[in-house]
């Protein structure tokens, strides 16, 4: 008897052979799924990246509103709202007392400008800025580099214009401090040249400041702050909150941030929600496409499927064979789409993202692990979509009598 090879997966390989029999149609199906998969993959990775970038970027945009004492000086032309050094102060519990609904987050700051800090050259003007680490949303998002340890008392953060390496010991009013982190460039003077520290640390310097200058600055009095930076609560408008603040609190000045940027933030958040719906519709339309195509495929192959039933194939085996074929085609399409999507992302990286970064707009790519997870979900999603699309035609054809299928009447 002659030798012959025994294939391992004869029934499974039937599906692959069926796909190979109609190369043009299979190629079109794979291409259609690949395009959908590429759009979904690229879209999801970009959306997630934009989400991450927005979370950091919009935090970096600072506050929507700033509340300072009525006669305090403010820089109203800067894109980033910052409290300017002033001797005017507000009560630290001012906003807590008012209990206004439109306030999402509020961060108090103490800003003290001095030429007697011992820092830098003789008589160099330095802004010491105290912030609440728990509530801050305008300073910490700008950190670009930091020491690889948790923060501790005596740590300071330097603005981007200060050319001092991380870990350097500096002295402020005779007290040693360590440069823990540095901020990115913001283009706003106070922000660029400031020395930032938790308010508790700044308040702890008060006795040394008094000893050196002969007085305690008003913003370093317990219960006093230079001003508040406010982020609107979702749904609140800048105008509403401004009126509410002025109606409830006296002796204050309310400064608006970029209303346009606030609108963009709210708009993009809504757009992201819409994009999720579009991705769902993309999967649904692909499932419909696969369903229509596999209706045609099983109709064309009624004779073959009828023959398989006639020689003993169970309904589950018939359905399994058709689904295997669909899963293979759409899974391959999904994989091609992810590869194509990765190429698209490379193009974006060298064009759009490059220009955004050049313009100083931060763009943070989704990390590698999550990108792989999104890719795997896209491939599985494509295969699952194929299975769902082919299930109805496969189930329908499996119900017919073999003789009807063989005669072409199924």
């Amino acid at each position, binding site marked *: 008897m002659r030798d012959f090879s025994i294939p391992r997966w004869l029934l499974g390989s039937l599906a692959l052979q*069926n796909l190979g029999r109609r190369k043009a149609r299979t190629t079109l199906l794979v291409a259609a799924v690949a395009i959908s998969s590429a759009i979904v993959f690229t879209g999801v990775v970009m959306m997630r990246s934009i989400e991450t970038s927005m979370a950091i970027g919009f935090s970096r945009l600072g506050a929507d509103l700033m509340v300072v004492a009525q006669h305090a000086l403010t820089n109203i032309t800067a894109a980033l709202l910052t409290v300017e050094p002033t001797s005017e102060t507000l009560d630290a519990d001012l906003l807590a007392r008012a209990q206004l609904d439109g306030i999402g987050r509020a961060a108090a700051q103490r800003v003290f400008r001095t030429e007697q800090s011992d820092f830098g050259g003789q008589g160099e003007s330095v802004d010491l800025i105290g912030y609440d680490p728990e509530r801050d949303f305008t300073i910490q998002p700008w950190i670009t580099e930091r020491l690889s340890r948790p923060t501790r008392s005596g740590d300071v953060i330097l603005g981007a214009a200060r050319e001092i390496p991380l870990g350097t010991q500096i002295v402020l009013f005779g007290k040693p401090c360590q440069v823990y982190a540095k901020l990115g460039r913001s283009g706003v003077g106070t922000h660029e040249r400031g020395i930032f520290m938790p308010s508790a640390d700044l308040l702890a310097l008060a006795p040394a400041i008094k000893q050196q200058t002969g007085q305690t600055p008003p913003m370093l009095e317990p219960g006093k702050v230079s001003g508040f930076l406010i982020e609107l609560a979702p749904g609140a408008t800048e105008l509403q909150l401004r009126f509410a603040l002025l109606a409830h609190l006296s002796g204050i000045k309310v400064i608006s941030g970029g209303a346009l940027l606030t609108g963009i933030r709210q708009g993009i958040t809504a757009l992201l929600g819409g994009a999720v719906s579009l991705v769902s519709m993309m999967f649904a339309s692909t499932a419909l496409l696969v369903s229509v195509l596999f209706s045609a495929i099983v109709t064309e192959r009624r004779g073959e499927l009828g*023959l398989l039933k006639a020689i003993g194939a169970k309904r589950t085996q018939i359905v399994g064979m058709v689904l295997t074929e669909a899963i293979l085609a759409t899974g391959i399409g999904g994989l091609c789409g992810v590869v194509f999507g990765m190429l698209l992302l490379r193009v974006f990286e060298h064009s759009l993202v490059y220009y955004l970064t050049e313009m100083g707009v931060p763009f943070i790519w989704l990390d590698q692990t999550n990108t792989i997870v999104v890719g795997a979900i896209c491939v599985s999603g494509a295969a699952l979509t194929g299975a769902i699309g082919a299930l109805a035609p496969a189930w329908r054809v499996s119900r017919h009598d073999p003789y009807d299928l063989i005669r072409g009447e199924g």
Partner: protein
Amino acid sequence: MSLGFEMLSCRALRKTYQTGRGPVDAVRGIDLDMSAGRYLAVIGRSGSGKSTLMAMIGGLSHPSAGSLLVDDTDIWSLDDNAMARFRNKRIGYIFQFASLLPSLRAIDNVVLPALLGRHDGTADSYKRAAQLLTDLGLGSHFDAYPSEMSAGEQRRTVIARALINDPVLLLADEPTSDLDVETEGDIMVLLRNINRERGTTLILVTHNLALASEAEQVVHIADGAIVP
């Protein structure tokens, strides 16, 4: 040769197709009995209903009415899976059309019913398929694809596939309709030998009276009914 017990018993078997022009009776109340191991020829003109009768006997087409016992089993009362098992294990089919899967080699086509039924290990099933092909004179065609074989070789491959699970009933629906006279003779000898040597009950559908002449039992069908 008769083994004494009933292989087939049908009563008032009927098949009606619903068409756009109303119902059409393909088979009209057929009564038929057949003992195991015998050779029955069903003859009749094209469209007389003999293939439809064969399809009902073989579990390929639901009867519209009547009762049918095959190998003592009321096959049309079986559920889907049991029916699939019955078709796979107990019945061998030889169709009147080229019924090999074109993308599979001859030996893969032959082994397919065994793999679908998962009766034995894959290697044992392939050994049996190889033996059958060798017995039918196709020992050098294991790796041949249907398109590389003659019509006669293809038909013998189909016969090997029908025998792979050692069925009790072999149904041959016009198995030589598209073959030349010499090949037709070879195939008929082969089927007759299977019936005689293996004791496999054979039902042959044909419109060729000469082919039917060797059968132990002949049923003539016209217009969906048995002609006395």
